[in-house]
């Protein structure tokens, strides 16, 4: 266990170098967010305060996107998948076959430290942004809701990481993984609820998506926060989310062991 704490420590120091990039990324990321909010305000324009569009009030809709931004800062995989694919391509993983350290856990520690640094850097611009929209920002009704939300976020982070890890394993078989990563990212962007809340989709589409892991990558925790998922649906959802984490852990391990068998170290 101690060696992994060490990895986290090193990871923090390494990612601190990118703090300028992080601040640029989080500030520029607010521009499309502001644009989306403007667009929804235009949709609600001329309706009363309590009017809803697909069961969302304007405040809930704006809060939805703000919470998405927070969850995204805490759980999104940014560079990790490229780095892992890079490690495989240029043979940097050879050392993990010799050292008593597990590559998956190693990368997870780096992912964890990367997210910690990113979140703390993004805290200032995102915090100011939320402060600006505080009139629209809704808080969860019960403290317990917030607790479930946090548990769900942890599972979301694991899910995000494991999916990216599995995708990066493709580098064992193909030279260029970036196109595959981008294609999956596009699907995730819509199917996880980044673009809009999934319950404003036609019900049949929304239901179908719930058979995939995608809603658990973003929409599910946010819907707990906003009180759209309540009661028994919360723990049922958490069990399904945990199921996907276990499932993808298995897939990731399988891809790794298969990949290693194919792997022939280059250079060295």
């Amino acid at each position: 266990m101690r060696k992994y704490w060490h990895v986290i420590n090193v990871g923090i120091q390494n990612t601190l170098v990118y703090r300028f990039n992080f601040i640029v990324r989080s500030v520029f990321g607010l521009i499309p967010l502001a644009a989306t909010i403007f667009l929804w305000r235009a949709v609600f324009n001329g309706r009363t305060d309590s009017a809803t569009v697909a069961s969302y009030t304007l405040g809930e809709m704006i809060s939805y996107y703000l919470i998405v931004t927070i969850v995204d800062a805490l759980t999104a995989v940014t560079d990790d998948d490229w780095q892992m694919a890079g490690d495989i391509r240029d043979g940097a993983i050879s050392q993990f076959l010799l050292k008593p350290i597990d590559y998956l856990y190693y990368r997870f520690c780096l992912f964890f430290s990367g997210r910690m640094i990113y979140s703390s850097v993004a805290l200032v611009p995102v915090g100011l942004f939320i402060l600006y929209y505080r009139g629209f920002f809704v808080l969860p009704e019960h403290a317990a809701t917030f607790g479930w939300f946090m548990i769900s976020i942890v599972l979301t982070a694991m899910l995000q990481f494991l999916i990216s890890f599995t995708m990066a394993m493709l580098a064992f078989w193909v030279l260029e993984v970036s196109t595959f990563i981008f294609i999956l990212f596009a699907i995730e962007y819509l199917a996880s609820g980044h673009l809009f809340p999934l319950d404003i989709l036609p019900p049949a589409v929304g239901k179908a998506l719930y058979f995939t892991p995608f809603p658990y990558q973003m929409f599910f925790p946010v819907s707990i926060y906003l009180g759209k998922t309540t009661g028994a649906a919360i723990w049922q959802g958490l069990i399904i989310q945990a199921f996907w984490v276990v499932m993808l852990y298995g897939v990731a391990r399988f891809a790794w062991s298969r990949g290693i068998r194919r792997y022939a170290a280059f250079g060295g």
Partner: protein
Amino acid sequence: MNRYLSIYAMLWRNSLVREMTFKSNFLLWIVVEMMWFALQLSFIGVMYLHTESIAGWSKWQVVLLVGASHLIQQLFQAFFLINCTHLSELIRTGKLDFLMMLPVNTRFIVSVRQLDFGAFVNAATSIAVMIYAAHRLHLAPTWLELAGFLALALTGVVVHYSLMFLLASISFWTVQAQGIVWAYYNLFNIARLPDAAFKGLFKVFFTFAIPMLLVSNVPVKLLTQKLGSPLEMGLLLGMSLLCFAASELVWRLSVRRYTSASS
């Protein structure tokens, strides 16, 4: 002039050969871009499930706008994007020395070295979407309007190029400019939304400082007879000249700082 044309023709041939060496990758990138385009369209589609109009724009008008914005973005990508993102690499590795020694304008060769042919395919997709949207709107543009649209769209390409090149020039000052160049991608998101939805400081900033709300709105407003006054077209033209001038100024200032890399 003739010399530049023949150089440019050679660059086209070179880029084409390069693209064709990685055929499957070339096709996959087209798929990626198409998916993102489909994503934007579905966003609009889902929004209009719940409303008739957004700030006075109907569904198919916004589809036309998203299409036009994609067209402009893809044309920019076809001619300039890779070159802008490669600039910091050229500086970091000192390869810029070699380009500076060539007996042509350095900015020209840096800006147009490589073409992205996949982007032409995606530009064609967006034209198809635009034609369908125009058909649903029963638009019958005159030849003059079409020519005007094309001219304004190309003006939009100049805006994107100038701003991205300006950001890329910052690489002369700091190696971390790479992140800034990619951050520009976020701005494309605003260009495809109807300008009437925006208000206040945000609208002023993205009209007069970074004219994202003009780039694709103005050409589409010409087609859909939404222009408040012909002055809007003049504004886009003026802003594009201003952006180009600014990028040239920053470029010249930056090149002066260039000291090559250890080699």
